[in-house]
């Protein structure tokens, strides 16, 4: 399997503060890569770099064999990179189905075609009954699902999920986990940031851990849970008790 996305020595600073510092990794097609790290580790900045929202200060992004460093968000979307927003960004004046249609329009010219794709996607994420409701009426949990629907309606090759589980009940977390797990089989490669760790531990094929902008570990979920550097990043230094 070839690398679908590769980032090389990627860095981004805000003024003098490095948010992402020399991060390199590759994602193969059909992988479900978990990205974890404590609060402020740089996960969202890393997503914004890959999605073209921010230009990197240094480093390269290679997607599908092309160097896409510095491309704008809409260019990244057109080549097949979709993303969700950690804080949902719905089009508040539009209905739920129209929100999803806007993503479907990326591959569908006609309104009827986009509506069909959007309707199918809404059923998949369990928002079918809210299709004609205004997006402004949805609860936070439902908005997270709308984010997922919007990303998938773009028919992406690579999708970046940024905390799609927040606000879901345990049953829903279970359902969403198995939903995400079957995406690689449909040809959608996933990079997933999630604070609900057991969900990601169960499904990820591989994990990367970053802390303070730097990559500190990489491996299977099981190996990550035992990695001393990871444990230290989450729980702090081991305290010697006499």
């Amino acid at each position, binding site marked *: 399997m070839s690398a679908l996305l590769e980032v090389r020595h990627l860095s981004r600073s805000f003024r003098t503060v490095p948010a992402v510092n020399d991060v390199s990794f590759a994602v193969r097609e059909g992988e479900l890569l978990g990205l974890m790290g404590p609060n402020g580790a740089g996960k969202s900045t890393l997503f914004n770099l890959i999605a073209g929202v921010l230009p990197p200060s240094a480093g390269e992004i290679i997607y599908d064999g092309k160097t896409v460093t510095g491309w704008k968000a809409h260019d990244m979307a057109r080549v097949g990179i979709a993303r969700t927003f950690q804080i949902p960004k719905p089009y508040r004046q*539009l209905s739920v189905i129209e929100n999803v249609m806007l993503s479907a329009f990326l591959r569908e010219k006609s309104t009827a075609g986009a509506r069909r794709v959007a309707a199918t996607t809404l059923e998949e994420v369990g928002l079918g009954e809210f299709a004609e409701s205004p997006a402004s009426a949805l609860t936070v949990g439902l908005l997270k699902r709308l984010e997922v629907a919007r990303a998938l309606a773009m028919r992406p090759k690579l999708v970046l999920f940024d905390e799609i589980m927040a606000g879901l009940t345990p049953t829903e977390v279970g359902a969403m986990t198995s939903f995400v797990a079957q995406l690689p089989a449909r040809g959608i490669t996933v990079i997933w940031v999630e604070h609900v760790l057991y969900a990601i531990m169960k499904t990820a094929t591989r994990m990367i851990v970053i802390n303070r902008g730097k990559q500190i570990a990489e491996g299977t979920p099981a190996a990550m849970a035992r990695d001393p550097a990871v444990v230290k990043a989450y729980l702090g230094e081991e305290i010697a008790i006499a």
Partner: protein
Amino acid sequence: MSIILDANAPKGGIPKLPQRGQVSWFEIILLLACIGVVASGVAHGLMDVIVLSFLFAGLALAWNIAGGYAGLISFGHSAFFGVGAFTSTILLTRHDLSPWIGIWIGALIAAAFGSILAIICARLRGPFFILSTLAFAEVVRIIALNWASLTGGPEGLSIPPTSSLADMVFASKSVYAALMLGYLVVVYGITKGLEASRFGYYLFAIRDNEDAAAAAGVNPLAGRAAAMALSAALTGIGGSLFAQYFLYLDPTYLISPELSFQFALLPAVGGLGTAIGPVLGSFLITPLSELLRSYFGSAAAGLHLVIYSLGLLGVMLYFPSGLAGALNKLTRRRPFS
């Protein structure tokens, strides 16, 4: 496979939004009524009000494409109006080119002005964008006033009042009313088409959330420029038609903040981001301001403006989503926006 919903659904369900782009009975009846008014040939004085109501309804719809749909609130649209009016008139009076052709050239130049404005203001939002559009129109007005060899300067330009189909000058006001109604119907049709098209949705997306729009593959700057170009072109056509009706162009009136505010006010009263709103706004406000001026204009200086302003305040206070919003509530549907 799909995700099963838990107890996340709001109680009692969520209201539904109507679908876009469909033609309602109300619209058909309104159109037939307009045709009826034109055909009936009402009194000469009233026909003037009807001509202006149709023209300003079209202009309000044109403004609404940028201001209502794309969220580009502009107080500079009189610049495009002036560009259209002057282009077709200069081509007619100096180069003997029929306005039937000149109008389209005016529309193209106005579109160029519109996209330039959108690109200049690419990074400006909210009040900063609005003020820049106002300043832009002032620049255009000052250029028009001082470039006397082209625009006639403060004296303006006149179109010879000789009735001729080729020159788009008519003796009968009913013909003008029909012409303006045609303009209104065309701009309305474009608006309805836009509402249901991919491009129209792109404008909604840019208005509601630019980051989300970009993430969905929409180029926000290109969308804003295209919306402004289309809106400016249609405003320019309205300007040319106004020139053909009024037969005299005065840069200080054509390109003025007052006129720009009027273009923005009519959709705001009628309902921003709806197709029927700007039309209702013009049909209410244009006759009101014209009639008030003729009844009270001589009685006490400024009295007609006081009554006019009170009426506007009333509409803004009691129908915050415009006349279209009130209409939607009457028919027990949720407003579009």
